[in-house]
């Protein structure tokens, strides 16, 4: 495929403007991962479109922001109901206290403000704790499902020790003998240099077949589906992967079975 012609074809603009159909969009997303020039053209058009829109911005009516803030605050009402109840009670109390003593009123108001501030700080802390907790739970769930997958009897484990000169490297392929899905556990691989990426290869009838590039993933990385293979190996390639492995950049390899 001629990348230049593709970039000039109008398909990128059509995609960014939301006018491409599902098939065109999927094709473009796939190609943009393989060809940095396409990614760059998309980025440039998006940036130009954004700049153009910002340059011709029209000031909205002030009511819009007010209504939005009111609507979004409404969504959080359940969390704040405690404060509202308190403030009402405090307001009532301060009216009586005002009659009795203005100074007491001020005193109570100050108390309330600091409690309110403290409460707000706690709310913020609670939200951040909640989100941390959620992240941890997701990670745990991922790990649990990874473990389930690894211990499945239909899973073939292919250990890939480092090749000569890369003895410190290690990676493991988990290959589902039923679905033929391939998962990779990069146990020990040196960090890829900028612009480089590891790529997994399946050796089928003595020939290397692309099994996908290794993205940053927690635990097991899902790779391409490989129906048959006698061996798996990992090489270091340019970002986006190659069509044929660079053999002197092989890190690990292992036979199936």
């Amino acid at each position: 495929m001629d990348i230049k012609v593709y970039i000039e074809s109008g398909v990128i603009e059509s995609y960014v403007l939301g006018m491409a159909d599902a098939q065109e969009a999927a094709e473009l997303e796939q190609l943009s991962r393989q060809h940095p020039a396409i990614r760059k053209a998309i980025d440039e058009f998006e940036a130009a479109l954004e700049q153009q829109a910002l340059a011709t911005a029209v000031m909205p009516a002030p009511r819009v922001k007010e209504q939005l803030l009111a609507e979004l605050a409404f969504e959080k009402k359940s969390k704040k109901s405690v404060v509202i109840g308190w403030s009402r009670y405090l307001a009532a109390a301060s009216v009586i206290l005002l009659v009795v003593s203005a100074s007491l009123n001020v005193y109570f108001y100050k108390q309330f403000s600091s409690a309110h501030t403290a409460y707000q700080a706690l709310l913020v802390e609670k939200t951040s704790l909640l989100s941390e907790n959620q992240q941890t739970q997701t990670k745990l769930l991922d790990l649990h499902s990874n473990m389930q997958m690894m211990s499945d009897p239909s899973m073939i484990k292919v250990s890939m020790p480092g090749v000569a000169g890369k003895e410190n490297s290690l990676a493991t392929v988990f290959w589902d003998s039923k679905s033929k899905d391939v998962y990779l556990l990069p146990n020990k691989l040196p960090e890829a240099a900028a612009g480089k990426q590891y790529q997994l290869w399946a050796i089928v009838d003595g020939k290397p077949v692309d099994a996908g590039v290794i993205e940053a993933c927690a635990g097991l990385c899902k790779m391409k589906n490989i129906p048959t293979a006698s061996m798996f190996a990992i090489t270091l390639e340019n970002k986006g992967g190659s069509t044929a492995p660079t053999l002197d950049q092989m890190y690990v390899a292992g036979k199936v079975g």
Partner: protein
Amino acid sequence: MEVVKKYSEPELVQLLRERGESAFGYLYDNYSGALLSIILNIVNEEELANDVLQDVFVKIWKQIDSYDSSKGRLFTWMLNIARNASIDTVRSKSFQNSRQNRELTEDVYAAGGTSETRTDQIGLRKMVHSLKEEYRVLVELSYFQGFTQDEIANMLKIPLGTVKTRLRAALTQLREIIKP
């Protein structure tokens, strides 16, 4: 409107996902005008366009988790939400009815100075106006009115293949016009 860079885009997205109210205020202050410009291009009516803008920000707030940064910029995602919401509004029955009523009353006041002539002279649509006629029509129908290429081929009685090639050529030219 000048964008004051306070957050990087990934930071902003992260803060929005954590439901940060100041992040939302920042997003609104910096992007509402740009989005209103495209909404006005489609809806053509200031009051209604402001209502659509409000809906668009509620959608952005609620759907921020579905934004995928690997597919493109945050603004592109918001722009597409704004465009779709505007087209939906124009196609809704109540809008069609009110437009008919309005056209009847506007006839009385003769031409000149109506909101319609103004809202297609701003933003992206103004740039589309500088395309040649056969290109302009296609971008108007597909981008601003949301017709599919099949529908356009039927409406204009030209082959689907021609619609496709012309539209692609039109968009390539549009990119050259937009280029800073």
